[in-house]
């Protein structure tokens, strides 16, 4: 599977997060409401649990070819915060 060529653009990353998470949620028979930068993953009313997030992170690493968590867990609460972690990681990679 070829990696998506992503420039470190927060809007594109957020759109990728939304698309991947929507697929994960659909796989369990539910529907993901539209995701915004302020959407809270856990506790924000989304049909998303830790396993879904774990799956999302694996999917994102495969698509983007980078892992902001390679040195351990880093906290994020909203979709925008998660996108920012990937933006920073992609920018660091150059």
């Amino acid at each position, binding site marked *: 599977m070829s990696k998506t060529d992503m420039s470190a653009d927060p809007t594109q990353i957020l759109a990728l997060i939304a698309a991947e998470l929507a697929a994960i949620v659909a796989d369990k028979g539910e529907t993901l409401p539209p995701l915004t930068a302020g959407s809270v*993953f*856990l*506790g924000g009313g989304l049909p998303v649990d830790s*396993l879904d997030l774990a799956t999302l*992170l*694996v999917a994102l690493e*495969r698509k983007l070819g980078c892992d902001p968590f390679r040195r*351990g*867990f880093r906290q994020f609460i909203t979709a925008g915060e998660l996108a920012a972690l990937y933006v920073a990681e992609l920018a660091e990679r150059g």
Partner: protein
Amino acid sequence: MSAAAPAPAPVWLRPGFHVVGDGAAGVAAIVAALTAGERENRLAILPRHGEPALGAPGSGFAVALETSGTTGPAKAVRHDLARLCGRLRGGAPDDRWLLTYHPCAFAGLQVILTAAQAGATLIAAAPGADVARLAALATAERATHISGTPSFWRGFLMSCPPPYPPLQAATLGGEAADQALLDHLRVAFPAARLRHIYASTEAGALFAVADGREGFPAVWLTQGVEDVELRLAMDGELLVRSPRAMLAAADSGGQRRRRAADDDGWLFTGDLLEIHGDRALFRGRKDGRVNVGGVKVSPEEAESLILAVEGVADALVTAQPNPMTGNLLTATIVPRPNADAERLRQAVREALTALPPAARPRILTFADAIALTPSGKKPRTAP
């Protein structure tokens, strides 16, 4: 129950113990079963699903809990209540404990008994509450003590923006605690005592690490820790020996799995260690099972289920390290010629519903072949 003079309260239940939250009724039923079982010398049966019950008259007082596992029917294990209570740390009546585990799991019962013995408050959510709900409850009910798995704590930090409840104690157990998480918790809860507990299925809690670092001091392998002796086998497996562990193993009817213990009382934990400098670090299980969000799962078991699906020529399930849940299972599937990929994907997903959610591979990738190791085997560790 007798309507005569009120029976004396059990030793392990101090006045002042009370339960708040929408899980209070469930905990009350458990406490009632333990109290009745002790008084009537009958087994107190605490199942994962369904109501607590008492064994037949004359069954002898003990606590029957189900082992958690993903293979086969749940097995009941008998525990001596007095011994369970003797191993708990003391507490104060002002303590407010959040229950994060299932109340009928070993760890859950320990939290309930800790609060009961101290005459403290237990905060219990309704069964099935997710980590976000638990975090909200902890804040609303001003929890001071929380014990949970590392996956719970990651979820807690994610669901609960600052300001955090001012915890006095944060305990981790059930999965290896990694350094990044410990550092996060230290920052989030500066006033809290931070401990991660190592336990084995047979022996329960063995030792606690309170220095804020992952793993444990390598010197414990030569000096031991408290009343526990530790040893490293040639292949890196951790062996432990302690009087408490032996009693606990005997309590559970001497349940012995293959090579669970040798004749000198050394228990084979099944956990692998690596020594790095002054530290012993946990590096997976001998049997290849991995921890996904606190649940021990078997990649091979999922693989067998997938291989049994019509249209699958071959499959490989591996565990991938994951910052949210420790590990996550993923599957590579080689379809038979002429198999419809989408229908096959659906069929595999359906087959996997026989396993608990954590044990199911979450990402299914189709491939033309599975790359084997140089010795012709399926690679069991993720690249």
